[in-house]
C-alpha cells in the first residue's frame, strides 16, 4: 500500500531525475527523456490503484484530501500528461526548428520535463482543500505553463502567447490572492472545511465581505477554465503555444480548474443567502460563455484557434452543469463530461500534430482532402469532430445529455435552450473540418500523412473509447466517484 502523498512526491522526483539526466547527458536522444517520463508517470498511474490509508500529519492539517474524486482526477491528469508527452515526441522536429540551439537538439529536453512538474502541480491542485495549498499548486501549474507556452523562442506567435498568458495570468493570480485575503478577513480561516463550518455563523453584516472575496476567487478560477469574460487569452494563447501544450492547457488545466471550482464553491451552496447569488452568477457566466464560445467559433479558419473557441464553448456546458449542482447527478455529469472532453480533445490534437507537420500549417484548409491522403486519420478526426459536436453514439453526446438532464431537473430551462441552440452552431463549425477532409480536393503534391506508431496507437484507442462510451456510457459511469 502506498501513502497517497508519495504519488506527487514521486512525480516531482521523476522530474528532478529527468532534469539531471538531461544536464549530464544521460539521454542520447532527447525523445528518450519523453519515454522515461511516460514510463515513470505510467508507474505512478498504476500506483494510484494501490493507495493505502492516509496516516501522516499532512492530511490532518486539512491541506490535502484523498477521496474518490481527487483520485479520479489524479488519474485523469496522469493520463493527460502521458498523452501530451506522446504528442510532444511527434512534435519534436518543430521544437528543434524553433528553439535556438548551439548544438542540434540542445534546449529541447526541457520540453518533455516541464509537463512532469505541471503534472505534479495539477495532482496537488485536485487534492487541495486549503486556499494556501490551492494557491501554491495553482502557481506551480501556471508558472510551468508560462515557460511551455513561450517555449518556441524563434516563433513570434509563441512568444506573444507566452507574454499574454503571463500578464493576464498574473492579473488573475492577483485577484485570487486578494479574494483569499477577504475570506480570511471575514472568517478567520483559509481551510475550506473550516470555512464550511463557520459560514452559517457569520453575521449578515459581514456577508458582503464574503461575497466580495467569492467574486474575486470566481474571477481567478474563471480565468483558468476560460469562462467569458475572462477568456480573452484563450484563442491567442492556444494558437501561439506549441500544440501539445495547447492540448495540455485545454484539458488538464481546465479540468483541474473545474475541480477546484467545485471544491471552493461547495461550502457556499449550503448557505441559502450565498447560494442565490452564486447561482445567478454561475448561470450568467454559463450563458455568456455558451453564446460567446460558440458564436465566435463560427468564422474561424485556423483549427487550433477553433479548438480554442471550442474549449470556451465546452466550458459553457460545464458551467451549466455547475449551475445545476443542486441536482444529485450534476456532479457526476460534469466529471463525465470532462472525461469525454479529454478523449475527444486529445484525439483532435493528436491528429493535428502530424497533419501540421505534413501540410505545413494548422489551418482548417490544411486538412483538405485528408480522407484520400490518410483515410484512417480522417476517420479518427471525423469521430473526434462528431463527438465534440455531440453526435449520438459518441461520448460527447452523452456528456451533453447528462448535463442537460441535470439542468432540466433544476429548472434551468433558459440555459438548456441556449445549450441546444449553441449545439446547433457547434455542428456547423466542427463540420467545417469534416467538409475539408472529405469534400475538398487535396493539394497536388500531398501524399499520406506520416505518423509515429505510438501516436497511431493512441489515436486508435481514443477513437475506440469515444465510440464504446458513446454506446455504453455505463462503463465510465461505473468508474465515477
Amino acid at each position, binding site marked *: 500500500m502506498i501513502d497517497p502523498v508519495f504519488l506527487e512526491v514521486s512525480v516531482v522526483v521523476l522530474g528532478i531525475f529527468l532534469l539531471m539526466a538531461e544536464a549530464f547527458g544521460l539521454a542520447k536522444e532527447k525523445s528518450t527523456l519523453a519515454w522515461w517520463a511516460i514510463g515513470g508517470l505510467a508507474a505512478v498511474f498504476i500506483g494510484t490503484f494501490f493507495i493505502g490509508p492516509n496516516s501522516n500529519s499532512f492530511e490532518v492539517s486539512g491541506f490535502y484530501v484523498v477521496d474518490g474524486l481527487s483520485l479520479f482526477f489524479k488519474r485523469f491528469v496522469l493520463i493527460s500528461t502521458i498523452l501530451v508527452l506522446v504528442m510532444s515526441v511527434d512534435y519534436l522536429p518543430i521544437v528543434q526548428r524553433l528553439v535556438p540551439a548551439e548544438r542540434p537538439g540542445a534546449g529541447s529536453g526541457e520540453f518533455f520535463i516541464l509537463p512532469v512538474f505541471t503534472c505534479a502541480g495539477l495532482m496537488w491542485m485536485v487534492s487541495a482543500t486549503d486556499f494556501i495549498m490551492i494557491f501554491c499548486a495553482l502557481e506551480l501549474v501556471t508558472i510551468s505553463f508560462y515557460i511551455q507556452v513561450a517555449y518556441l523562442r524563434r516563433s513570434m506567435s509563441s512568444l506573444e502567447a507566452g507574454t499574454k498568458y503571463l500578464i493576464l495570468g498574473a492579473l488573475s493570480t492577483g485577484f485570487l490572492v486578494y479574494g483569499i485575503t477577504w475570506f480570511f478577513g471575514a472568517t478567520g480561516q483559509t481551510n475550506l472545511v473550516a470555512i464550511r463550518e463557520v459560514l452559517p455563523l457569520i453575521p449578515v453584516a459581514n456577508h458582503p465581505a464574503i461575497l466580495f472575496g467569492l467574486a474575486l476567487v470566481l474571477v481567478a478560477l474563471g480565468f483558468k477554465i476560460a469562462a467569458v469574460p475572462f477568456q*480573452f487569452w484563450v484563442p491567442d494563447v492556444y494558437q501561439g503555444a506549441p500544440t501539445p501544450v495547447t492540448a495540455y492547457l485545454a484539458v488538464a488545466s481546465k479540468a483541474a480548474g473545474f475541480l477546484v471550482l467545485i471544491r471552493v464553491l461547495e461550502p457556499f451552496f449550503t448557505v441559502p443567502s450565498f447560494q442565490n447569488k452564486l447561482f445567478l452568477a454561475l448561470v450568467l457566466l454559463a450563458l455568456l460563455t455558451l453564446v460567446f464560445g460558440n458564436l465566435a467559433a463560427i*468564422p474561424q479558419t485556423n483549427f487550433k484557434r477553433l479548438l480554442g473557441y471550442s474549449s470556451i464553448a465546452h466550458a459553457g456546458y460545464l458551467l451549466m452543469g455547475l449551475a445545476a449542482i443542486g441536482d444529485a447527478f450534476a456532479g457526476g455529469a460534469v466529471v463525465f463530461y470532462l472525461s469525454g472532453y479529454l478523449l475527444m480533445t486529445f484525439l483532435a490534437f493528436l491528429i493535428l500534430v502530424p497533419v501540421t507537420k505534413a501540410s505545413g500549417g494548422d489551418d482548417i484548409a490544411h486538412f483538405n482532402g485528408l480522407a484520400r491522403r490518410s483515410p484512417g486519420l480522417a476517420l479518427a478526426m471525423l469521430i473526434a469532430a462528431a463527438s465534440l459536436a455531440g453526435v449520438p453514439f459518441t461520448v460527447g453526446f452523452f456528456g451533453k445529455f447528462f448535463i442537460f438532464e441535470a439542468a432540466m431537473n433544476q429548472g434551468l430551462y433558459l440555459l438548456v435552450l441556449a445549450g441546444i441552440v449553441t449545439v446547433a452552431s457547434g455542428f*456547423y463549425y466542427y463540420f467545417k473540418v469534416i467538409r475539408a477532409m472529405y469534400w475538398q480536393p487535396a493539394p497536388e503534391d500531398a501524399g499520406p500523412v506520416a505518423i509515429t506508431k505510438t501516436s497511431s496507437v493512441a489515436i486508435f484507442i481514443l477513437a475506440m473509447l469515444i465510440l464504446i462510451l458513446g454506446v455504453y456510457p455505463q462503463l465510465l459511469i461505473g468508474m465515477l466517484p
Partner: protein
Amino acid sequence: MSTQTAPWIILFSPLAAAVLIFLIGRFSKTLSAGLAILSAATGCFLSWWLFRQTEVAPQLSLEWLNFGPELTITIGITLDHLSKVMLLVVTTISTLVFIYSTGYMRDEEGYTRFFAGLSLFLFSMLGIVLADNFVMMFIFWELVGVSSYILIGHYYSKDSAADAGKQAFIVNRIGDFGFMLGILLLWSATGTVAFSGLLSAIPGFEGAPVYLTVACVLVFMGTVGKSAQMPLHVWLPNSMEGPTPVSSLLHAATMVAAGVYMLARIFPILEVVPDAREIIAWVGGITCFCAALMATQQNDIKRILAYSTISQLGYMVLGIGVAPTSSEAMFHLFTHACFKCLLFLAAGSVMIAMHHETDMWHMGGLRKKTPVTMICFIAGMLALSGCPFTSGYFSKDLIIEWAVLKIPFLGWLAAAAAGLTAFYIFREFFVVFFGKARSEHAEHAHEQPVSMLVPMLILAVPALFAGLPMIQEHFFTLSHPDAHAVPHLLHPFLYAMFFGGAGLAALLYFKAEKDPVSIPLFANRLYIDDVYFWFVNKIQGGGSIVLSWADRWVVDLVIVQVPSKLTWACGFALRFLQIGSIQAYAFFFGAGVVGLLYIMLSK
C-alpha cells in the same frame, strides 16, 4: 456450457462472423461462406441443446442506459419456451439456407458481401428473438430492416433491386413508427419496457381501456409493416429482387416471422385487450384472403410464393387474434417456415436451372430435367395447400377452426382462402414442371449441385411430417376447440377446398400453353400498388412541389439563411473583441470583474 452463456454465444456468433467476413472475407470465398455457416451451425447446435434443457438458469441482463428510476434500458436475454422454439426455427433454417447459398451464389458478384449480410441479418433476427425488453427488440427490429435493405438491394446496380430495397425500408418505417409510438404508450402506462415488467403490470392496469387498445394496435402496426399485412404488404413481393436465398430466409424464418413472434411475445398483454385482438384478427383474415386472390394471377414463380407468404402470415395473425394461446399461431409459423423455405429453395433451384428466368410461362416440362427439385417442390406444395396429414394441414386447419368459432365470417373467409392456396400453388406446379418446354433455357435446364439439393431434401422432411401430433407435441402445447362446437360442415369443406383447388388447377393448367384465365383485378393485385403509386405520384408529388417551394423560400431563406447569416455576423462581430491587444484584454477582464462584483454585491 451453461444455459446462461449459450444464448449470448448464439446471439453474437453471427455478428462475429459478419465482422470477420467484412475484415478478411475478401481473401477467400470459401472462408467467408465457411465463417457464416459455422456461426449459424453453432447457433443451431446450441439452440437444440438449449431446447433439451429443462432447467434454465436465470438469464443475465446488462444495464445499458440508465436514465434514472423511470427508464432503465437493459440488454438481456429472455429464454422461455417461446424463444427456444423460435431459436430452433431461425437457426436451423438459416443454417440450411446458408449452405444452399454457397451453391446458389457460386457465380454471383458480391459473394463475400452477401455472406456478411446474411450473418448480420441472422444476428438481427436472433436479437429480436432473445430480447428481454421492447427497446432492445426495437433496436434489433430496425437492424433487421437495415440488413434486409442490404440484402434485397444486393444487385444494387440494378434499378429495380435498389428500388425494392428502398421500398422495403420505407414501408417498414411506416409500420415501425406506429410500433415505436406503441412502445412509448405502453411505457408511459406502466413505467417499464421490460417484457417481464409489462406482463405483470398490464393485467392490473387501472387506466382507460381504450388507452391500452390504442397502444396495442400501434404496436401491432410494427407487425403490419414487418409481417407484410395489408395495407403495408406491397414491399414483400418486390423484395423478390434480392437473391433467392434471401427471399427464402426473409419469408421463412426471419423478418416476416418477427412480426408474428413479437405478437406472441406480448400475447398475455393482448389477452386483456379484446378490442385490439379483434382488429388484429380482421387484418389477418382479410390479408390471408386478398393475398391468396392476388397470387392466383401472378406469372413470376417467386412472386406467387411472395403473395402466398403474405397470405400465410395472414393466417398466423388471424391465429393471434382468435386462438386462446399464442401456440397456434407459432405452430403455423413453425410449419410455414419449413415448407415456405423449401418452396423458395426449389424455386431458386429452378431459376438457376433457367439462367435466372422467373416468368413461369417461359418454363414448362421441367419434371424430367430437374426431378429432385420437383420432388422437393411437391413436398412443400402439399404442405402449403393443406393436403391432409402434411404439416400445413394440421397448423392451418387449427387456426381456421378457432376463427370459425370466434368470428365465423373470418373463419369461412380463411377456409375459402385455403382453396385459393391449393389452386395457385398447383397452378404454379403444373405450369413449371409439366407441359412442353416453352423456351430455349427450359429445354437445356439441368439439375443443381448437391450443396443446393441436400438442404432442400432435409427441409422436405419437416415440411411433410412436422405437423403430425406425435412430433409437434414436443414443441407446442396446442389447445383444440371442442369437437362438437366446430360446425360439422367445416372439415368436409376444407377437404373440398383442397381437392377442388388442386383439381381446378389441374384442369386449367395441366399442359396449358398460355394462361386460359385472365382476371385483371387479381393480376394487378387489386390495384393497391397502383393506388399507392398514384398517391405517391400525384398527391405526394404535388405536395412536394409546394413543399419544395416552401423549402427553398421559407425554410432555406427565412428560417435558415437569415439566422445563419445573423449568427455568422454575430460571430464575426465578436471577433473584433479579440483584437489581440493585451491592454484591451486586461480592460475587458477588469470590466468582467466589476460586472461580477455588481451581481454578487447588489441587493
